[in-house]
């Protein structure tokens, strides 16, 4: 792996994103590039003048006034962005990553990811963002957009980093799951880790054969691997397994279905990210 993109926003997850990025970097030697995106101003500054009157040359005065307010705002946002990035870089240094590039960008997170992911092999993002509401377990608004838009695997950082020894692969035999298996077999990232392959669903010959093929591929790559097929609802079964087996990282395919379908029946991926307390590596 050559390079990874770490997206930070100044929330409590930023530290954890750095720690996860550092873990990947230490294992694979990948360069870390830290990104902070200053969101587009959806609503420009406002003067709160309800006098409803038009002075001579009202347009020009108003334009000057609004431009000045916007300038102050974006200066502030820039300063804050640099502080966040500096802090993140320091954190990475403490974690043993010597060189980290930082990038402060204007615009939309998804656009930034699409622009820069060509050079990157992995994207690290926090489970929740700045505006996160922990009580309701809402996920960060940008998370799903980034995962859907990105061509790269996305590592979703949990609230705090825990050393990773055991991983669980949620295996449904679909194309993104196969992609995940190939990735695990080939990448340095997973060397020496214990791997559990889990298929949730009926115990059919087809399921068993596919699962064993995958397990075989991982063993051939030198990973200690066990596998199981369990009946039930995917998100709850996986969450139970994560808890009982003390799994440190879940790998799974993401958002296989359209938004329309998700709107009606809900998304397994979103449920999984929400209910698991461990980091999750998503493949599309």
């Amino acid at each position: 792996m050559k390079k990874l993109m770490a997206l930070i926003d100044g929330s409590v997850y930023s530290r954890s994103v750095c720690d996860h990025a550092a873990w990947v970097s230490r294992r694979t030697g990948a360069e870390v590039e830290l990104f902070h995106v200053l969101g587009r101003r959806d609503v420009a500054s406002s003067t709160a003048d309800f006098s409803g009157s038009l002075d001579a040359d009202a347009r020009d005065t108003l334009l000057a006034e609004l431009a000045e307010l916007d300038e102050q705002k974006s200066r502030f946002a820039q300063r804050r962005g640099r502080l966040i990035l500096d802090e993140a870089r320091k954190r990475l240094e403490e974690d043993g990553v010597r060189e980290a590039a930082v990038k402060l960008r204007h615009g939309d997170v998804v656009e930034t990811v699409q622009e820069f992911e060509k050079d990157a092999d992995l994207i690290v993002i926090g489970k929740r963002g700045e505006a996160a509401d922990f009580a309701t377990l809402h996920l960060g608004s940008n998370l799903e957009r980034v995962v859907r838009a990105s061509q790269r695997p996305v590592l979703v950082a949990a609230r705090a980093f825990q050393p990773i020894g055991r991983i669980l692969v949620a295996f449904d035999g679909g194309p993104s799951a196969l992609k995940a298996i190939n990735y695990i077999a080939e990448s340095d990232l997973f060397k020496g880790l214990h791997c559990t392959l889990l298929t949730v669903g009926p115990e059919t010959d087809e399921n068993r054969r596919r699962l064993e093929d995958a397990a075989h591929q991982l063993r051939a790559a030198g990973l200690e691997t066990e596998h199981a097929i369990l009946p039930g609802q995917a998100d709850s079964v996986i969450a139970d397994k994560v808890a009982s087996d003390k799994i440190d990282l879940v790998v799974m395919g993401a958002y296989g279905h359209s938004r329309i379908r998700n709107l009606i029946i809900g998304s397994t991926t979103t449920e999984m990210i929400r209910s698991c307390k461990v980091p999750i590596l998503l493949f599309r």
Partner: protein
Amino acid sequence: MTDDFASRLKTEWFGNIRNDVLAGLVVALALIPEAIAFSIIAGVDPKVGLYASFSIAVLVAITGGRPGMISAATAATAVLMVTLVKDHGLQYLLAATVLAGVLQIGAGLLKLGYAMRFVSKSVMTGFVNALAILIFMAQLPELTNVPWLTYVMVAGGLAIIYLLPRLTKAVPSPLICILVLTAISLYFGLELRTVGDMGELPSTLPVFMLPDVPLNLETFMIILPYSAAVAVVGLLESLMTASIVDDLTDTRSDKNRECVGQGVANVATGFIGGMAGCAMIGQSVINVKSGGRGRLSCFCAGVFLLFMIVVLGDWVAIIPMAALVAIMIMVSIGTFNWGSLANLKTHPRSSSIVMLATVIFVVATHNLAIGVLVGVLLSGIFFAWKISQIFRVTSTLSADGTHRTYTVEGQVFFASADDFLAAFDFKEVLDKVTIDLSRAHIWDISSVAAIDMAVLKFRREGAKVDLIGMNEASETIVDRLALHDKPGALERLMGH
């Protein structure tokens, strides 16, 4: 794609709810006197302008391309329809409104919004200055041959409008002006003209009705010139206002969607008995100043306006005209670009002439479309003249004196074709002439004809002529149109 659309829709409508609603209220309060005043300009009942302002504001909020911009019945379109109302009556105005809307939808679908690029900054400045002058002139009938008390009232109104914001910016000062002047005139029982004297005010919600005009070619020919002018002026002011709001809010807008939106709003407005309108520069500035940014602000302005009119109709009727006149003077002062007067000294003379010509033609004809047309033509001519100055022909004679090389630099087109021909000395006796066009561009038929003429004239004098260094675009037009390289060249050229 669908997701982006949904989230954009959400931001445009509900990204700024509190400020949009408040700004909508401020704008609605300012729209009432304007809508009434513009109806009076057009010579129709106040309710025609009030219904129009409601329906245009609400529909453009939904269909327009520039969130945060205010559209309603406007002075720019009202002044165009004066003679139509006078000669043919209200029903023809409604029909003309519908047709103007249809033309605007067509313009939007044909993406004529891009044609705005030909309207230069000077023409736009001329447009707003002319508009301000027209609004002010429309107030003159209320200020001539009236009791002296009217002047006192108007002056008092202006004082309130301009001085109150220095004390507080929390309440709209035009509203206070209306309240105070109405209270004074009621208390002292002053004999002043009121809004009620100007015609019927709405007491119900607008209803759908077809304009009562014969559907034939004759009607069409009567309303077409008015509709065309209204469509053009409406789009011009709307697109110009859209760029102003773009600048103020540092965001972008969809100009072609705006054209269609204005058209849809006008078509619907004609069918509920309203007059044509467009975006309003002054109101949009007020909206932005009050914090309005989204579609909700224009929508709320329309809804509040109708609500207030239907509920408070009886009270609106007793507002003295003096209060309205004061507000319209404020609008006219606020619309006029005062900086442009100082710029007359410093800006290039050609752009000042364009600006002044636009103003003069509008004020003379009361038709903003004509003024803009004159302005655009003038700026085109000035531009062509300027470009034609960037043109030079130099030449060198070979050592033996038999071969001259002419080097042409710059743009060869209709305005510089004469200079091009004049640069050659046909009297000189030469064996060979080379015309080097590598630093020139051949634009049109006039320049190709000039080249033809030069080549043939040299040939007649017995010189051999080479054209070299034409760039690809020039070569294409010369190959297609030139005659000198085709048989019988001279005869055909002379036949031109």
